[in-house]
């Protein structure tokens, strides 16, 4: 067990007083940027980067990665409390987290989310520790066709399961794809769908769309339902934090399944967003309480959160071993590595043992520090729910406006965000599902790029998607997930020819 001794050596580097202090600073700052939508880990990293030039590379990366953990945790806070996901990967957390919080259980929702997130991250780090070389090899096997297959699998596991009218789902999905296509197209280099607005050449940022669709849209739905009449008795309850954590082991199946999905999607280039959606979709299908998903189910929070963090953690490995930044934050960190005089890539593990194993050890310690700090903040955040609606509503509007603006310092984004708010309200009111739309905005253009790159490689033949075992398995799994519900439904129709008409109205209660 060579890795174990390396890891032990890493711990002796990571667990020192100055490094623990750096972790606390990093995590706190990360929670702050994570909680504020629009600001994200990249902002924090670029803020801290100049400070790190005088530091040892290990200290610098510990500070930055701790901030990354903090931001990952913080991102779930606004998703749960206000239905505003600050990062693409915390969208799926809103589906059950927000209903639970609105139901008067914000403490439970937050504690559950943080607990399962920490579990996911832990599994991710263990994977990195013991399978680093193997994981790097797996990642190399992914060409454009395999990328496409992974995205396809993510779509297939999520779409086709919602309770919404099929045509409305399809319309929402297609609108998402169209929005993702706005801007410059990677494969041809041409400008698409800007509709005469020059600034749209930059594309529509996910955060702008989601703050409108979810944040403002939900605010409009809430004000209409006379939300301020709610009597949420969210007392500051420390005991509930521990009770929620204590209940987690009961959902060990969901935890393990989600961690597995997360790790898999983190290593393959699917990423945390696809992982959280896929995990939620699969949990909804296979959980015994799947029908109640969307109303504040515990497993509806566990599944996306565990997968998100497992993927987020294991996605750091390709950055170290291959030099591909998996996210914007990783990209800034890589810029940092170069400035510190290190070259990310296969040689890092050989040349810079102290650095790599110090970082890996700090992931264990950093996550423990992060979850401890973040659990301490739960009652504080939960108390936000007690602020009367009339006061919190304008603050949410300001958060959304400033968040949309700070994404790329653009006023147009703010106006678009408000427009998305109206769309979000209409869609919610008329039971158009928002999740497929968001999923399409986030990975739609990547899927399209991968498909067209594959077509270039194969000179237009679809056989490239069945060219080797890996891609064939992925595509077949995707097709199976996509067609399974259809087949089941047909089978049910076969047995009970007269489908009850009342079902449509019953279904219109909970729509993801």
């Amino acid at each position, binding site marked *: 067990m060579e890795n174990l001794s390396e890891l032990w050596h890493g711990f002796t580097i990571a667990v020192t007083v100055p490094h623990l202090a750096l972790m606390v600073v990093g995590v706190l700052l990360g929670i702050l940027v994570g909680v504020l939508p629009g600001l994200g880990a990249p902002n924090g990293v670029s803020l801290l980067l100049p400070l790190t*030039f005088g530091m040892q590379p290990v200290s610098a990366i510990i500070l930055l990665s701790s901030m990354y953990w903090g931001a990952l945790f913080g991102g779930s806070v606004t998703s749960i409390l206000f239905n505003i996901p600050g990062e693409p990967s915390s969208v799926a957390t809103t589906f059950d987290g927000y209903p639970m919080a609105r139901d008067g259980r914000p403490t439970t929702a937050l504690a559950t989310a943080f607990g399962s997130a920490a579990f996911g991250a832990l599994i991710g780090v263990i994977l990195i520790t013991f399978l680093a070389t193997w994981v790097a090899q797996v990642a190399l096997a992914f*060409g454009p066709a395999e990328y496409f297959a992974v995205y396809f699998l993510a779509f297939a596991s999520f779409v086709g399961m919602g309770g919404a009218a099929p045509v409305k789902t399809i319309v929402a999905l297609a609108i998402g794809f169209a929005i993702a296509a706005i801007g*410059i197209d990677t494969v041809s280099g041409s*400008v698409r769908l800007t509709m005469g607005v020059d600034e749209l*050449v*930059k594309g529509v940022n996910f955060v702008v769309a989601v703050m409108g669709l979810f944040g403002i849209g939900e605010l409009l739905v809430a004000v209409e339902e006379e939300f301020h009449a709610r009597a949420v008795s969210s007392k500051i309850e420390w005991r509930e934090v521990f009770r929620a954590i204590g209940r987690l082991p009961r959902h060990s199946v969901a935890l393990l399944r989600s961690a597995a999905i997360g790790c898999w999607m983190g290593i393959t280039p699917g990423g945390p967003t696809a992982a959280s959606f896929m995990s939620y979709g699969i949990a909804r299908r296979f959980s015994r309480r799947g029908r109640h998903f969307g109303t504040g189910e515990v497993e509806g929070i566990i599944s996306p959160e565990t997968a998100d963090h497992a993927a987020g953690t294991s996605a750091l490995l390709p950055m170290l071993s*291959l030099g*591909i930044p998996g996210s914007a934050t990783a990209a800034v960190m890589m810029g940092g590595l170069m400035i510190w005089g290190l070259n990310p890539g*296969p040689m890092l593990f050989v040349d810079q043992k102290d650095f790599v194993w110090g970082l890996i050890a700090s992931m264990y310690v950093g996550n423990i520090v992060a979850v401890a700090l973040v659990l301490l903040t739960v009652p504080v955040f939960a108390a936000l729910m007690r602020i009367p609606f009339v006061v919190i509503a304008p603050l949410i509007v300001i958060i959304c406006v400033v968040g949309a603006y700070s994404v790329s310092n653009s006023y147009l984004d703010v106006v678009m965000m408000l427009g998305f708010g109206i769309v979000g309200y209409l869609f919610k009111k008329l039971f158009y599902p928002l999740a497929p739309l968001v999923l399409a905005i986030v990975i739609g253009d990547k899927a399209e790029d991968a498909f067209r*790159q594959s077509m270039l490689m194969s000179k237009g033949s679809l056989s490239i998607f069945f060219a080797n075992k890996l891609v064939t398995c992925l595509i077949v799994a995707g097709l199976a997930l996509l067609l399974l519900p259809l087949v089941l439904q047909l089978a049910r129709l076969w047995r009970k020819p007269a489908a009850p008409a009342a079902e449509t109205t019953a279904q219109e209660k909970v729509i993801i």
Partner: protein
Amino acid sequence: MGRTSKLLLSAAAAVLAGTMPALSAWQPQKPIEFVATAGPGGGTDNLARAVQNIITKHKLVEQPIVVVNKGGGSGAEGYVYGKASAGDPYKVIFGTSNAWQQPLVSKVAFNYTDLTPIAAMAQDEFLLWVKQDAPYKTAGDYLKAAASGEFKMGGAQSKDTDEVLTRMIEKAGKVKLTYIPFKSGAETAVQLAGGHLESHVNNPSESLGQWRGGTQRPLCVFSPKRLPQGPKVTATEGWSDIPTCVEQGLDIKQYEQPRTVWLPGKVTPDQAAFYVDLMKKVQATPEWKDYIEKTSQVDTFLTGAEFDKFIKEDLEHVKQVAGEQGWLVK
């Protein structure tokens, strides 16, 4: 830093400060925004941040500097922003040759003439890379094997520098390559390491780690002479050991990507002169030398008529390639 050099530096600073009003009458009165036409972590972003750090460290400007990323639409977002800020001397745009190449091949709402050129600060070299275990040892072998017409060449973005160079290789080597565009050079490098491509034309810094790690190696450099001597990259080789492409029978004498700095249009000559001067001072610092060396770029400084001439020549060249490929926008 020794006391003497500190003294010297402060003396130099005093001289500079004394002569500054004579060189440029204009001085910034409020915070300056550096606009990087690339996402965080890209080459252009690194340059903008390096310049910001140097200026702040040496206190070359009294006002604070903020770096903003506007990398949407392959950089078009940043240039359009520059165009919209005409007359505002507090926005400095950092880009590449994209500024004049992109308007040729796609319908973007700007042209380089909408901006005021300040300088080209560094040149990134291009190399021809293949997978470590590929059978060919020289560019000549590579071209022979590529004659089969089955070769896939990867690169960052479409109809951009990488694809222009690919088309030049096709012409010079009389071969046909399938060009597959990816989002960035880093992504392309990984695709080559995984064996999904036969080659790519990354900049040195984009594939440095991969070369050291033994997953890919450079065949030749698109430069008139070999790269300067530096520390060894692998056990046996350094940048200066790579032959030029012309040596190996691939007749492309020079292909480089300049890192360019711009102001918005309609600024006064005084204001432009201030920034030209500022960039010159940045270039004189040891930190700049360090940055250039670590990113394996070539230190150059083109401004004024020289820079204009460079743009015109490059533009003619790209126009020719783009015209042959039918890329020009009508």
